[in-house]
């Protein structure tokens, strides 16, 4: 995956934190993520299609999900409920949408977000490189994983081809 598709995510994450999430953050160096993939409490998944296809996945702990919900909405939540899922979905939406505007091609679409709650591991399509962008905050690390491939012919299907393995 070309850096021209990764750098837009760095800008998009920075822009989101600067405008709507008033929590100190530090974006680390993106790296290739390899198996075995760790488990998380919450994931937000967005499919991308067009000149690229694949998905963007936000992985985070319960503590950080609750904190980011508070930062975004101003409302305190104590459980990973529908409000929290909705907030994480919107954060995923803004990160993916903000990144795609800086992609080389303009013909790209994003799907509505899917949220997974409960200890799980995200499975990606075989052979697709996963680039992980760490974003550290005082409430823990947000990992933004980008798994995209360039298409010679633009695709139209918006669904993310990911699987999640739930563990209760």
């Amino acid at each position, binding site marked *: 995956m070309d850096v021209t598709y990764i750098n837009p995510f760095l800008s998009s994450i920075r*822009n989101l934190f600067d405008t709507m999430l008033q929590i100190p953050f530090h974006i680390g160096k993106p790296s290739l993520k390899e198996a075995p993939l760790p488990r998380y409490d919450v994931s937000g998944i967005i499919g991308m299609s067009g000149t690229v296809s694949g998905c963007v996945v936000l992985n985070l702990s319960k503590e950080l999900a609750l904190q980011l919900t508070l930062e975004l909405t*101003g409302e305190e939540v104590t459980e990973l409920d*529908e409000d929290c899922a909705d907030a994480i979905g919107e954060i995923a*939406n803004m990160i993916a*949408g*903000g990144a795609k*505007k800086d992609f080389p091609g303009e013909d790209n679409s*994003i799907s509505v977000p899917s949220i997974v709650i409960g200890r799980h591991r995200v499975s990606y399509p075989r052979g697709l490189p996963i680039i992980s962008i760490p974003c550290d905050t005082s409430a823990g690390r947000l990992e933004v994983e980008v798994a995209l491939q360039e298409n010679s012919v633009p695709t139209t299907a918006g669904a993310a081809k990911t699987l999640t393995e739930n563990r209760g």
Partner: protein
Amino acid sequence: MKIMLVDDSRTMRNIWKKVLGKMNETEITEAEDGAKGLLAVEEHGPFDLILLDWNMPNMDGITMLKKVRGKNISTPVIMVTTEAEKPRIIEALKAGASNYMVKPFTPDALQSKIKETMKKASALA
């Protein structure tokens, strides 16, 4: 003012409501997709302003906007969306959007956009 908020994210509708609350705008109708938004326009309109997301299930915002304008309804509509590419902005403005706001945004920026849109609408009225 009567304002309708159309976004599938309750979080985003709540953020908009907070901004509107600061502007003392109290009569608010909410819809979670374009189909429900269109129905609300028919059943509870006319509205003074519509804030409209683009990507939603069932009916997206651009389709709803085209259908609203197809009914000769001139309510000011601000598209508030993550869709930030120029062709999308042009498509929305051509379809009759009064203004365009890219997510994410600061509350102040949204408030300014709403004021600017209402000012422009009243000048045209």
